[in-house]
């Protein structure tokens, strides 16, 4: 196995989950992701001009100041001051439903944490400012976005500390956040969206109204999608504790129909509101989400 191939394996959530510590996970996932890209077309974009220096072999001709060459007949390249203008918020759902995992898989929360860590790492690597918001039926924790490398530690600590526990009221929590995030930026929501679609979408529209770019990572467990239960089962709601005894094979078809309709409704409304909707299962490799970030970043610039 080559070094590149060994890096790629960390994009698999199951492999990543075996690593200890979010920082390691974030780093390996992103490095694996970057390896897969071969060449980063995004490096050095978010910088302000600082000074000129004499061209040296190996410098990109894109940064040659042709006007100065015309005046001085010498090649100078522009030196930019590193500065970001992209402020990203990672919104992580801590509702109890995120704690669900089908046998042998990550919980939705774990998957979301890993994804958030990887995104934070990648964003900071790209000189973007990244903040973190965790919420249940209220805003649990808000870490404002910063671009400093040291900020990663803070974010990862917070992700490490968070556990899904309470019930969801995404609408209220997101509305509250939308009011607090004044500056235009990138909002990346990681949730199973197990809430009233209307209130969730109302809040997301609120972000759009404030000119934010919004990406919704809809994180689901494969069992939630396929509903493969074959025994008479008492289903206990992780949020409410309610129990429902049923014969799953009796209702599986209808469940799948309704679930897909619900999921598609989110996708449709998101599309209508120019919100990026990405449905992820906890088995989906992380690069799918990371690539979406990079695409969105490219669109923003």
């Amino acid at each position, binding site marked *: 196995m080559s070094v590149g191939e060994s890096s790629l394996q960390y994009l698999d959530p199951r492999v990543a989950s075996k690593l200890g510590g979010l920082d390691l996970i974030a780093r390996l996932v992103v490095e694996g992701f970057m390896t897969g890209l071969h060449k980063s077309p995004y490096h050095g974009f978010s910088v302000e001009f600082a000074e000129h220096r004499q061209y040296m072999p190996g410098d990109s001709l894109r940064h040659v100041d042709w006007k100065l060459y015309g005046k001085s007949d010498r090649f100078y390249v522009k030196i930019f001051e590193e500065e970001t203008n992209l402020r990203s918020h990672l919104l992580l759902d801590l509702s109890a439903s995120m704690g*669900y995992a089908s046998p042998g898989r990550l919980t939705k929360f774990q998957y979301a944490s890993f994804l958030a860590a990887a995104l934070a790492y990648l964003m900071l690597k790209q000189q973007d400012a990244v903040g973190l918001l965790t919420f249940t039926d209220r805003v649990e924790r808000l870490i404002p976005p910063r671009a400093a490398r040291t900020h990663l530690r803070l974010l990862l600590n917070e992700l490490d500390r968070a556990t899904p526990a309470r019930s969801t009221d995404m609408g209220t929590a997101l509305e509250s956040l939308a009011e607090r995030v004044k500056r235009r930026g990138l909002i990346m929501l990681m949730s199973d969206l197990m809430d009233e679609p209307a209130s969730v979408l109302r809040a997301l529209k609120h972000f759009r109204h404030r000119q934010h770019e919004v990406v919704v990572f809809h994180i689901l467990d494969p069992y939630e999608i396929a509903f493969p239960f074959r025994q008479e089962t*008492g*289903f*206990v*709601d992780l*949020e409410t504790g309610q129990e*429902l005894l*049923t014969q799953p094979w009796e*209702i599986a078809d209808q469940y799948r129909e309704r679930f897909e309709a619900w999921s598609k409704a989110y996708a449709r409304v998101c599309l209508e509101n120019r919100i990026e909707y990405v449905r992820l299962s906890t088995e989906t490799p992380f690069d799918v989400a990371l690539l979406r970030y990079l695409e969105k970043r490219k669109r923003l610039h």
Partner: protein
Amino acid sequence: MPFSFLNVAFLAGIAAAAIPILIHLFSRRKVSRVSFSSIRFLEEIARRRVRRMRLTQWIILALRVLALALLALALGRPALRGDFVFGKSRGESAVAMILDRSYSMRAEGERAPLWETAKDRCGEALDALQPEDTVTWIGVDPRSTEVESFPTRFAASDALRGLEAGYGTTDLAAAVRRAGAVLADATALNKELFVISDFQKTGLGPDTESGLTDLMADLPAGVRVFLIPVDEGPLPNTALETARLEGSAMDKRVHAEAVRHGSEAADQVTVTVEAGKEVLGEAMLTVLADSRESTDIPLTRFPGDGEELLARLSRDRLPEDDVRYVPTGGSGGIVTWIVQDPASPSPFLPLALSPAGETGQFQTRRMNPDELVSADLSRVKLIVLDNVTMVAREAIMRLRQWRAAGGALFISLGDRVDLRYYNESLLPALFPGVSLGNLLGTDEATGSSYTLTPRAPGHQAFSGFEAQVGSPVTGASFWRIVEVKNTPGVRTLAEFGPGLPALVQGDGALLFASSLDGTWNNFPTHAAFLPLLHQSLDAMLSEGSEEHVVVGESVEGVVDRSLVPTGAELVCTGPKGQVLGVSSQAVPRGLRLHSEPAPVPGFYTIQAAGRPVIQRAVNLDTGPESDLTPLTDDELRRVFPGPRARIIRAGSSIGTPVREARYGREIWRELIVVVLLLLVTEGWLSRRGVS
């Protein structure tokens, strides 16, 4: 309508109905619990679905429970009952069985003798009973009051094995009455009457000749009746009804009369007269459908005194009634004295009774009233007092004793009769129950006259006449008659008008209320005179005759005391060596010997100290019994109306209707069908649930 169960033990199986419930409860604990992100979708979908599913589950559970419970119930053999008080024991059943043993049951059926079929069916009926049921057999023979009780059906079955058909006749009505009395005395809850018979139309007894009487009325309320016919439809049959020795010593013959029952004629039937293995005479007869025909069979020799003579028809369906045992009597005919006043002896009666001298049935002798004082009456069987004025007192005393010993008397009146003397002396001594009244009519034939009309048209005296009450049987004119008053014991056979008896019959005595010498009427010159006279006398003589004995009657007769030494053993031996007990009673003429009833036809001999003293021919009581036409189902229904009587024809099980009637209708088959339907439904619902 209450239930009862024939296999109560199987009801314990109802506990098996708890198995699905236990499985259900057990499997409930096995339900796995899974924490799920949100049951919001499940709730939305499952709320109605789960409710319906739970309902389905309960239905499936109920179906399983019900199926098992019904299966256990079916194994318990439930029955619906009408009048059974639930919870009573099944042993409380009293069963009366009328098993027809009359000789008509000896008829050969198409498949087997009717008697064998009857025994088989009787065995089936007994098998259908419970072991503890009491069984009482009732006979159908009117001469017997056969009632035999058995404590269990097994005892009855054992007795049935050795049972044979008898030679008696059928009186079903009387048998049903006896069964009704037996069942009325029974304290059992279930009372049942089985009638196993060929159900001859003629077997309903003398009281029902005129129509089909409701016999259910003779049974206590609540008795269930099972009618088990063993007939094979109307079987044509010819019976030899009469065979008697006639004629004088010079010209002996057997007069035979055959009756054909059925819609087909019996063509060229042979009648033979046999003495042992020797055939003494033979004749051919053709008997039309439902009619009778007679013939005289000349004999090749005169049978010896006491020789056993029988007449036999060619064999048919019922061989028993094809044979008649002919009483020889040892004499040439019925010794008859015709007593007339010597001053004006009439020729009519002597001629009528013995038209060819000594060759007739009656061996006649004309004599004066005075001769009665001293004449030997021992061989005389019939004395005719023809217009006799008076009889000496001593003669009356002798005649009285002679009458008590069985002598028959025929009195015809006339212008010489002293009515007062008759009323005071003669009639009270010789014909009690009859008195004479006024002389009616005129002395001249030219005046108004009376006609002779039957009062008892069915009587043997009118055999061959188109006799109807009120319709004259002869064109003869009766211008002088005597008013006759008779007590109920004396039967009026014919009359001259309402309240004017013409011919009355008492015990061994006949009286004609006009003359038979041509002075008061012209009857002796009319065609009806001879048959009416002969048939009236035949009827009277046959009623009192000791020589014409039928099966079930006693062999009896009066013998001289000298023939029976004091202390001598008296026995009566039958045709197959049967030994019957004999009792004796002193009468003026000697000793009247009286045997037990004769069980089979044939010749019977009463012996005193080993010496034969009386011989009698015992024959079947032919007549109605020989008619093998059975009642139809409709007629049976009229005789046994109502839902409590059930006809079980050949080929149908006896056990099932008996059990259904006793315990109701068994419904285990229906329950099994319901169980299967429940299981199919359960399977369908379950499969639907799994899919």
